[in-house]
C-alpha cells in the first residue's frame, strides 16, 4: 500500500512556505545567536544571560547600533544537552542568519558544541561554561571565552585554601566535566602551593541534578577533613546548603570553599541559610569592582531588574560588546571576518579591560573570592568580606600545549 502522497505533499508544502521566509535583508538587523539553558532546573542562568544581553542591546541600539544597523539576539534553549545545542546552533546559523554565536551554561554542552563550531564558520563567545578543554585540546580559531575557566577559578581557590592552613581536602562536586575538573585542578594547584596537602582518594560526585545530598554530606562529615571544596552549583547548591545546614555540616570546623557560591540566584534563594565564614567564588561579583563602567552597569541593571547582576549577566553583557567591537573592526558581517577580528581583542568590561589571549582565545580574567559575612539587609543576601579579585595574570596558566590552532 503506497502511503507517500500526503507526507510528500505536506513536506514539500511546508518546505516551500519556509523557504519563502526572507533570509534577512541587507540592511535589516545584525543577528547574533545565543544558546543558554532556558528550561529545567538551571533556567535561571539563561534568564540572567538574557537580561544582561538586553541591557547591552538597549545601550548599543540606543546609540546608533553597529555599522548603522540594529543588533538583535535570537535565543535557543540548549536544554543542557549537547545534541540539542548542536542542532540549535545549526539552526541559528543556517536558518536564522546569525553572524556569531554566544552562550553555553554547561561544560558538557561546550565540549560537544565546540568541535562543531569551525564547520559553521561563526565565532562562539562562551560566557559561562568553564571547562578548560574549549581553550585547551578542543580549541579552535572560532571559539572564544570571556568568562573565567576552571583553571583560573581553581588557582584562585588554591590560593585561598593555602592561606587557610587546611591540609586535608575533599570535594563534593557534580558528576560531569565541571565537577571532576574542578577537583583535579584544585588538587594540582594546591599541591604546588602546599606540597604536604592531602587530597582525599574518595571524593563525592553526586549526579548533576540529584535532589538528595545527605549521603555525601554524611560521608564527608565522617571523613573529617580540614577543608571541603564544593563545586555543586545552581539549584543543586541551594539543596546542598539547606540539607547540609540540617546536618550541622558547617559547624564541623572545616574550611568550606564553594567554587561558584557567590551566584546571585543561589544567594537570593538561600538568604540567611547561606552560612557565615564560608568562602565563595564567582566569575564576577557586582560589588567588588571600582571601575566607572561597573558602577554604571550595576546601577542600570538594578534599576531595570531590581536585583544585582549575576556573573552570567555580566558575561553575556561583555560578549555583546565584544561582538560590537569585532563587527566594527571587521567592517562587515561576514562570520569568518568577525571571528578573526576577535583575535587578541581587548574589550572594556565592568571588571576592567579584558583581553583574549592569542594562544587560546581565553579571556585573561580572574575569579573573585570572598568570605560570607553579615546579611545585606537591603538585598537580603549575604555580603562578602575579605574580597580577593584575582587578576588574569595571577591565575591563568600558560597556554595548554594541546591547543593547536
Amino acid at each position, binding site marked *: 500500500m503506497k502511503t507517500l502522497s500526503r507526507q510528500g505533499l505536506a513536506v514539500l508544502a511546508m518546505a516551500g512556505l519556509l523557504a519563502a521566509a526572507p533570509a534577512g535583508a541587507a540592511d535589516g538587523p545584525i543577528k547574533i545567536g545565543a544558546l543558554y539553558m532556558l528550561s529545567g532546573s538551571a*533556567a535561571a542562568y539563561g534568564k540572567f544571560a538574557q537580561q544582561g544581553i538586553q541591557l547591552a542591546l538597549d545601550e548599543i541600539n540606543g546609540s546608533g547600533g553597529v555599522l548603522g544597523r540594529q543588533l538583535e539576539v535570537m535565543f535557543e534553549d540548549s536544554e543542557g544537552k549537547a545534541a540539542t545545542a548542536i542542532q540549535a546552533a545549526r539552526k541559528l546559523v543556517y536558518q536564522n542568519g546569525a553572524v556569531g554565536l554566544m552562550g553555553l551554561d554547561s561544560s558538557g554542552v561546550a565540549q560537544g558544541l565546540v568541535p562543531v563550531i569551525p564547520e559553521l564558520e561563526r565565532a562562539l563567545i562562551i560566557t559561562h561554561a568553564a571547562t578548560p578543554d574549549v581553550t585547551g585540546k578542543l580549541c579552535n580559531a572560532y571559539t572564544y571565552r570571556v568568562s573565567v575557566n576552571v583553571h583560573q577559578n581553581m588557582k584562585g581557590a588554591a590560593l585561598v585554601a593555602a592561606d587557610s592552613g587546611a591540609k586535608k581536602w575533599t570535594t563534593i562536586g557534580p558528576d560531569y566535566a565541571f565537577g571532576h575538573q574542578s577537583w583535579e585542578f584544585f588538587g594540582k594547584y594546591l599541591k604546588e602551593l602546599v606540597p604536604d596537602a592531602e587530597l582525599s582518594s574518595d571524593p563525592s560526585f553526586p549526579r548533576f541534578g540529584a535532589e538528595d545530598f545527605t549521603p555525601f554530606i*554524611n560521608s564527608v562529615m565522617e571523613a573529617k577533613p580540614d577543608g571541603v571544596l564544593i563545586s555543586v552549583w545552581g539549584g543543586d547548591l541551594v539543596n546542598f546548603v*539547606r540539607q547540609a545546614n540540617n546536618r550541622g555540616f558547617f559547624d564541623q570546623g572545616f574550611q568550606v570553599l564553594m567554587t561558584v557560591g557567590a551566584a546571585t540566584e543561589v544567594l537570593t534563594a538561600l538568604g540567611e541559610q547561606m552560612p557565615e565564614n564560608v568562602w565563595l567564588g564567582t566569575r564576577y561579583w557586582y560589588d567588588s569592582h571600582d571601575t566607572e563602567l561597573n558602577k554604571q552597569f550595576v546601577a542600570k541593571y538594578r534599576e531595570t531588574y531590581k536585583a544585582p547582576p549575576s556573573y552570567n549577566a555580566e558575561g553575556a553583557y561583555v560578549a555583546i560588546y565584544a561582538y560590537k567591537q569585532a563587527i566594527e573592526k571587521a567592517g562587515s558581517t561576514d562570520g569568518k571576518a568577525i571571528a578573526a577580528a576577535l583575535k587578541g581583542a581587548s574589550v572594556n568590561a565592568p571588571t576592567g579591560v579584558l583581553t583574549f589571549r592569542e594562544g587560546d582565545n581565553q579571556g585573561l580574567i580572574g575569579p573573585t573570592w570572598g568570605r560570607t559575612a553579615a546579611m545585606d539587609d537591603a538585598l537580603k543576601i549575604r555580603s562578602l568580606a575579605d574580597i580577593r579579585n584575582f587578576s588574569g595574570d595571577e591565575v591563568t596558566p600558560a597556554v595548554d600545549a594541546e591547543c593547536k590552532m
Partner: protein
Amino acid sequence: MSGIALALLNSLDIGLLLFIIAVGLNIVFGVLNVINFAHGALYMLGAYVAYSCIAILGLSFWLALIVAPLVVAMLAVLVDRIMLRFIYEREISDSLLLTFALLLILNESVRQIWGTGIHVVEPPAGFQGTIRLPGGITYPTYSLFVVIMGFVVLGGLWYLFNRTRLGIIMRAAALDREMAQALCINTKRVITAVFAFGAWLAALGGVVAAPMRAIDPGMGDKIIIESFIVVVIGGLGSFPGALLGAIVLGLLHGFGGRYLPDINLVLPFIGMAVVLLIKPHGIMGKGAVT
C-alpha cells in the same frame, strides 16, 4: 556504626517522602488502570502553589498544606473533564500518551507562570533545626515530621479503603466497573474523584517536600521515574506495596549513595527489573492481570 545508623535514618525520610508522593500514582492505576505520567508535574505544582501561598499570600505552612493540594485536586478535576474522560475505556498505552501530553503542558505552564528562578520554602516553626537522637546523631526535625506524615497518610489511606463507604466504592469500581454501575454507583463521579485524589496526594507530597528541596522547574521530571520505580517494586495498585517500594528505594538511595556511589544510579532500575520479572504485580501487588 553511626554511619549505618545515619544511612538508615536517611533512607527512612527519603523513603517515606517518596511514599507520600508515589502512593497516588499507585491508587490511580489500581482503580482506573491509568498510568499517570503527569504525576510528577502535579507534585511539582503542589510545591509551587504552596510556595505562592506562603511567600506571596503570606499563609502559614500548615494552611498551605491544606490549600495547595486542594487547588491541585481541583485542577485535576478539570483535566479529567476535559481530557482524560475520553480514554478511560481505551488501552493503557493511550493513558500513558495522554498523561505524557499533560506532563508537557503542565511543565511548560509552571515555567511560564512562576518563571525560572529557584524558590525556597522554610520548614514550619517548631520543625526547624535538628534534634539529638540517642547515639549522638543529629537528625533534622523536619525529616521527623516527614516520617510521621508518611505514617499518617498510610493510616489515613487504610482507613479510607477499609472503613469508609467511599473507599469501598472505589475498590468495587476497580474490581468490576460494570457491576458497580449496575449497582447504581455513579462510576463517572468515582473516576473523577479517584483521579483528583491521586493528584491531591501528589500535591501533598509536593508541599511536604518543599522545605526539603529547592523548588525549580525541573522537579517534576526528577520525581516521576522514582515514582514509577516505587510503584513497580511495591505493586501496581497496592498502597501498602507503595510503602514497601518507597522504603526499598529509600534504602537504595541512602546506602547506595553512601557505600556504592559508582553504581547507585543503576541499582533502582535493576531492582525494578528484578521485581517485574519475578513478581510482576509487585511484591505486594494484586493489580490487573493480563
